[in-house]
């Protein structure tokens, strides 16, 4: 199987380990990824709230580029995935398609009738592949809290491969890796990502609740699939600790990283050394 791979802005910068681990794990599992040539930002959760047409055109541009390659689009970042899937769906509606086409044609890009599917890496890993038969180093004894956030599984008419309110895909993947999954009740509560900068206090409060619950469940780490959630949960963790005078020191890992470890891939090859909150405690527990 071959995909057109869309890394998005974050996977080339702050979420580098997600990019590295996605590529290494997919290669190990026999999936070929071809980076989408000349991709651009999907507009995130913000652009359509400034102008619907601008937001849709930003996301649709990448879908149109993947159409040209006749390949389904694979994104690891939940945001890029969600916005691209939304654009792909909009292209099935004649009115929306016309509006989008008008803008893209000015960029010299045309939307074709060849419909492609937009997939997320979690969807492919849980629904298309069987990782359980490939596990070489089971993550025995590791307690993980799987955090889905919002855009990975919502809304259901755009995503559709897991429950929008009680998703289980990452739980299943972590279990297949041999890890123990805690009952993380806040797993689909929003971390406040899109308002992190403009309403920092609110975002910190929302994120703190997630960290508190994961800690109270005695989780060794949080596992997720969204760089924006990781920005809140990991990169801002020291700020939240300082603001509320608490100490978490809770590693945050991408789902592809823990799968990579279970497949027997060396941590260095997965980019695990690139975290800001050190995942050493996780590796120590696994004896790696």
């Amino acid at each position, binding site marked *: 199987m071959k995909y057109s791979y869309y890394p998005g*802005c974050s996977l080339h*910068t*702050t*979420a*580098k380990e997600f990019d590295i681990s996605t590529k290494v794990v997919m290669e190990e599992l026999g999936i070929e990824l071809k980076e989408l040539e*000349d*991709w*651009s*930002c999907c*507009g*995130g*959760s*913000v*652009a*359509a*709230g*400034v*102008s*619907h*047409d*601008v937001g849709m*055109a*930003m996301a649709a*541009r990448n879908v149109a580029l993947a159409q040209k390659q006749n390949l389904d689009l694979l994104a690891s970042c939940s945001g890029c995935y969600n916005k691209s899937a939304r654009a792909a769906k*909009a292209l099935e*509606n004649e*009115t*929306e398609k016309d*509006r989008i086409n*008008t*803008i*893209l044609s*000015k*960029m*010299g890009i045309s939307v074709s009738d060849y419909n492609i599917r937009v997939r997320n890496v979690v969807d492919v890993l849980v629904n298309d592949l069987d990782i359980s038969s490939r596990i070489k180093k089971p993550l025995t004894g590791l307690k993980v809290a799987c955090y889905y*956030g*919002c*855009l990975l599984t*919502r*809304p*259901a008419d755009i995503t559709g491969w897991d429950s*929008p*309110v009680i998703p289980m895909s990452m739980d299943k993947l972590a279990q297949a890796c041999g890890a123990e999954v805690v009952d993380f009740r806040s797993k*689909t*509560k*929003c971390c*406040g*990502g*899109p*308002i992190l*900068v*403009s*309403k920092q206090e*609110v975002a910190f409060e*929302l994120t703190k609740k997630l960290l508190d619950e994961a800690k109270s469940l005695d989780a060794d780490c949080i596992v997720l699939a969204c760089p924006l959630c990781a920005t809140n949960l990991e*990169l801002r963790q020291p700020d939240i600790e300082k603001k509320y005078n608490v100490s978490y020191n809770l590693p945050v890992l991408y789902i592809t990283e823990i799968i990579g470890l279970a497949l027997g891939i060396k941590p260095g090859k997965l980019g695990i*050394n*690139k*975290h*800001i909150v050190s995942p050493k405690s996780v590796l120590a527990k696994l004896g790696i």
Partner: protein
Amino acid sequence: MVAKKKFLFGLKADRQIDGDKMNREFSDRVMAEGGEGAAIAACMQCGTCSGGCTNIDRMDMSPRTLILMVQRGEWEKVLKSNSLWLCTTCYICTSRCPRGVRPADVIEAVKAIAIRQGIENDSTRFNQIFVELVQKRGILFEPELMQKYGGLQAMLEQAKLGIQLTLKGKMSPFPAKIKNPKKFNEALEKAGKQ
């Protein structure tokens, strides 16, 4: 202050979908901005959207009320509401609505209208800078976003994290860009003004 509740035949007055009070003008405009996803005629004011909302306890107007106010054409109230900027577009409301209404998409469309109407606050400023910078090169350069939004102070506050990220090879001092940013920018600039 808690607003005095008014009831009529057991139904809270602000919950009434009263034909006489409806005004299609605003909802038509919301739909013109956001497309079919912003249609709200099916809303029966059940309040499920508000029940699941991430930030409801900080909002001056619940998502349910906001939809009703759009239906009634209460422009001022809706455009001035802080709910627009507290919405994180997490789609809980949209996933739970039993009538297929998409409050998150409605709010998104209203945000765009509010910005065009000249509503200004930290959120509108951030959102506009974000879009402007994506339009410029096709790929966002975060340090520039930080600097444009928060100025020198934000840069200093984020300096430690910036250095950590740079040392880990997760932040380049040079922005990335697409092949033809000029064409990209022009096309989107024009679309945004319509």
